[in-house]
């Protein structure tokens, strides 16, 4: 199990996957907007999206868990 965390504080611009979806390592799964920039969040490992913890438009803090990936 792997938790994807926000690298910096910002707003969730989009979520590119759905729960239950299979993802590969390096695949962009979500975008955070911070300092007007689009910050891609990539899956660090290949696996299945177990849980998405955030919603589009929601604010996230640095190090906040965005998504949980299962093996």
């Amino acid at each position, binding site marked *: 199990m792997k938790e994807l965390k926000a*690298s*910096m*504080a910002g707003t969730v611009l989009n979520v590119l996957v759905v729960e239950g979806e299979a993802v590969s390592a390096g695949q962009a799964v979500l975008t955070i*907007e*911070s*300092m*007007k*920039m*689009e*910050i*891609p969040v990539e899956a660090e490992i290949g696996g299945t999206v177990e849980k998405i913890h955030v919603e589009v438009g929601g604010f996230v803090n*640095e190090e906040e868990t965005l998504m949980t990936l299962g093996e």
Partner: protein
Amino acid sequence: MTKTSETTGYNERLEQKLATIFAGGHPKYHEKMKESNKLFVRDRLKLLFDDENYAEDGRFANVEAGDLPADGVVTAIGKVNGQTVCVMANDSTVKAGSWGSRTVEKIIRIQETAEKMQVPMLYLVDSAGARITDQLDMFPNRRGAGRIFHNQVRMSGMVPQICLLFGPSAAGGAYIPAFCDIVIMVEGNASMYLGSPRMAEKVIGEKVTLEEMGGARMHCTVSGVGDVLVSTEEEAIEEARRYLAFFPANFAIKPEKLEAKAAKAGRTLEAIIPENQNAPFDMYELIDQLVDEGSFFDIKKLFAGELITGLARIDGQAVGILANQPKVKGGVLFGDSADKGAKFINLCDAFSIPLLFLADVPGFMIGTKVERAGIIRHGAKFIAAMSSATVPKISVIVRKAYGAGLYAMAGPAFEPDVCIALPTAQIAVMGPEAAVNAVYSNKIEAIEDPKERLKYVQEKHQEYKEEIDIYKLASELIIDEIVAPYQLRDVLSQRLSIYETKDLPLPYRKHGVYPV
């Protein structure tokens, strides 16, 4: 001379002593090293030097003790890439590479040799630290361990100093890597810490693993004390040799120009750089298109990835590159990236390596978290280092350069030798969206009809974009040149050649009082 029985006896004694010294510590410690995928110190030196024809000083240190061959450290002078270097290398088969009085004296002497000869100094560290039983002889005195660090500081910027960390570098010994220009760490074996996990548990009640406390990966990703993370000792030595090839023997000599190579085949810069200023792209792909293939040497790759710092060659000419990475944290500068940039600039400036800034920066991070962590003084450190650098400075505005980000990336006010813009460049205090919000927020909020409001905002964006149009800035002589992306590599090569003879006098003073 023919051997007499007497000289034969002398020789036998010498050979016996040498055999003991070359064997290092007890065989069980050699076994232990093998189990940890570690090489014996003399095998490390064989890999490091061009050949085995190197000189060794103080080989007989503590020879009378019997079980302390070379007193746990080999100090040698040999060639790397044809260039003379001085080396100290701990032997961890001898009392875990700990420092006795002769160990320290040998290290001090090889440093003095490197300074006298004005050649690079390499530290191959694998040591448990001070021999507590010998502390009065090696710790507090004038030629005690402190002198090693004093010498490192004195030699900093005079000759390159490189640390290869193969094992522990504990307590005071951890300052050897800290004072080096670069620290290469072997994952799994290398570690640095002031207090061991055992000590931390006893003294402050903290329970952590060695890796958490001071492992190679932690230092190369979190603390930033480590610069290059490798998986084997062979790789560490290869990286050290590759790194050294960029450097002259000392500050008074300029780096050597090597044979030019073409850039890696790949997408054009036009294809790599998105038009949307806020969209991410991979700056490494752009760098690949500018530098000679295979020449890029990444420094602190795993630390503060929003700023890339690395050595490379363009048409064979050495150059130090600082580039914002839009793919990581949007390329926004943080305290760690500012520290990373400052150290890298100091390194290149000390050894006459020209600096190339590739700017695509939204500015420095804002918010309470970074303010409390002192982002202002960290940013000031970066700007001070860049401002003080007297090597050729080439500033390329790739896309946006907003706020103090423009300053940190050698913007026009900081005497770059040339400030080049790509047609995608945008220089401003802030981006159009933020600027229009800042100036017109009251007016925007007062417009009730959403369509009217959107129209008003779009008009203001357009006005702002026209105000900061790159051709307007060129017309005002703010930037020196606008270059088509496909011509950038050639232009950079030409500029590096032009500025080869740059010689800027330093201001008359002792030294600046820089932010730290």
